């Protein structure tokens, strides 16, 4: 197990390296100059050049890349061009918001998806299954920003039940409340695929012999469903959930923008718009690490839950 873990962690290094390399060159290739963006169109070329020199942007791209790699490996993320403050400090404020959003989103998604999949598994070909399928297809078709803005309009502004956006700087309960609608939006993005795969694995499991045996033994339907079917399909469910959460790590960019949340996604979006190279680098690095860690944890959980995988 330890060897397996070590091997897996080693495999992550080239992936993270590849991501930051690509994002470095993409950012430097994109039009627009950070110094010009910060100083505005009326600043003199001289002051722009001075700032570029100070940031090391007047050096060769190769030098900048090596410098950046060296700094990243030694854990120095440097200062933001735009905010002129240490990036570490920015990330420390922003990361918890995004993590909490993703966690709440995942919990909501499971809470919504499991009952729906049970309904569509136990009563296949019935009206309720058709309703679940219809719900799935409709939700899958709705873009995240649209779901978000509809929730803001109806539950936030019209009903006034939840904050319509923004994030209080202190007070954990208030922060949680501010994340309810965003997390629900994130969850709805994950539900269709989750229901679909859970339904497939539940259907497969309920056709297996040990389930038939459980029923034959006289156990009631609910118990068979819970102990035999749901428990076994949770293995497949976890791997799908892992992939979904990893995919939605990037999707938080959209949700945070719609709900005006001060998370990693909105930091990154602003950084891209401001050509704030160091922040873009730091954010993609963080997102990449987050994504590969989620995949790793998913695989480990999978192995822990399913003894058949561990032996390989």
């Amino acid at each position: 197990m330890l060897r397996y873990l070590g091997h897996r962690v080693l495999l992550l290094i080239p992936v993270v390296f590849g991501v930051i390399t690509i994002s470095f060159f993409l950012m430097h290739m994109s039009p627009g100059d950070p110094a010009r963006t910060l100083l505005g169109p009326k600043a003199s070329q001289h002051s722009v050049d001075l700032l570029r020199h100070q940031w090391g942007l007047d050096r060769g791209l190769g030098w900048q890349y090596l410098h950046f790699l060296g700094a990243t490996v030694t854990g120095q993320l440097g200062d933001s061009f735009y905010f002129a403050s240490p990036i570490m400090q920015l990330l420390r404020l922003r990361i918890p918001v995004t993590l909490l959003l993703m966690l709440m989103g995942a919990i909501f998604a499971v809470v919504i998806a499991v009952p729906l999949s049970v309904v569509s598994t136990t009563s296949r070909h019935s009206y309720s299954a058709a309703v679940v399928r219809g719900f799935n297809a409709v939700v899958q078709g709705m873009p995240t920003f649209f779901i978000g803005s509809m929730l803001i309009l109806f539950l936030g502004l019209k009903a006034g039940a939840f904050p319509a956006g923004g994030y209080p700087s202190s007070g954990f309960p208030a922060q949680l409340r501010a994340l309810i609608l965003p997390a629900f939006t994130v969850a709805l993005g994950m539900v269709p695929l989750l229901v679909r795969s859970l339904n497939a694995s539940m259907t497969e499991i309920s056709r297996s012999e040990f389930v038939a045996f459980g029923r034959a033994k006289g156990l009631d339907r609910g118990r068979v469903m819970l102990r035999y079917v749901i428990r076994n399909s949770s293995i497949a469910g976890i791997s799908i959930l892992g992939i979904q959460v990893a995919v939605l790590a990037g999707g938080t960019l959209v949700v945070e923008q719609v709900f005006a949340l001060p998370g990693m996604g909105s930091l990154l979006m602003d950084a891209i718009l401001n050509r704030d190279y160091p922040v873009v680098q730091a954010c993609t690095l963080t997102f990449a690490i987050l994504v590969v860690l989620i995949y790793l944890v998913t695989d480990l959980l999978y192995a822990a839950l399913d003894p058949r995988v561990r032996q390989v």
Partner: protein
Amino acid sequence: MTNAGTTVAVIDNGIGVPLRTWAPRFLRARNLQLYAGGLLLLAIVALVALAPVLTPYNPAATDPLNALQGFGGAHLLGTDNLGRDTWSRLLYGGRVDLTIAFLAVLVPFVSGVLIGTLSGYAGGWLDAIVMRIADIVVAFPFYVLVITLVFVLGSGERSIFIAISTVSWVAYARIVRAEVLVLRKREFIEAGRASGIGTTRMVFRHVLPNVITQAIVYSMSDIVMNIGVIVTLSYFGLGIVPPTPDWGGMMSNGQQFLAGGYYSLTLVPAAAVVLTSLALSLVGDGLAHALRIHR
């Protein structure tokens, strides 16, 4: 994503399968989803393709005197804040969105299927390299890659198409590769190889036809996702450049008027997006059923 070996046909003896169904008897035997979805999709494509014939107004023509009109009257679906006809914009916008969404599936489909097949069939260092590249693309937050790519390339249809294509071949490559790995161990492939059939012929005649069905089914949900991405990019002002109508642009433009009670400006294009996705999902499910793939 999908488990290996799922293409094996399941013989349904009818025992233990609930017979209750919501479809009338004459439809039950047929593939209802495929027909309903196909019909809906055909209708949408026809409407969008015939946009010049079906729309009485120029989608970009403004008419401030008739701004923010309701349904009916001279404008079937009303007008937006600049007095542009919503029905015309809807159809012309659909042309733009659906064309990119479709093209941005075609290219990744072909490249992803080819890469996945070759990588799975050849194995070794080629496979290792391809899968590491796939890992990197997957670890890159999707919208970050797309948004930075659109920045580098400049906004517009071509950039969106390139950005989506760079990312989404990975899913096809992974799906197909997993199938090939299973298929490679089957007797008929080994028999073919043993009897001296060349690699090119083996791949194109015997491997590819057996693994492509999963990819076809996946491509339906991929189009849905592409529409979502295109619309979202336009919403952020990074997609289709304004005078050209597009569903995302219409939705983001309409949002300013939601609080004032003008829901239709946002809801009409949203309904178009949802209906199109619904049609594609139905076709996808129907195809999966027809091809006996259990997802």
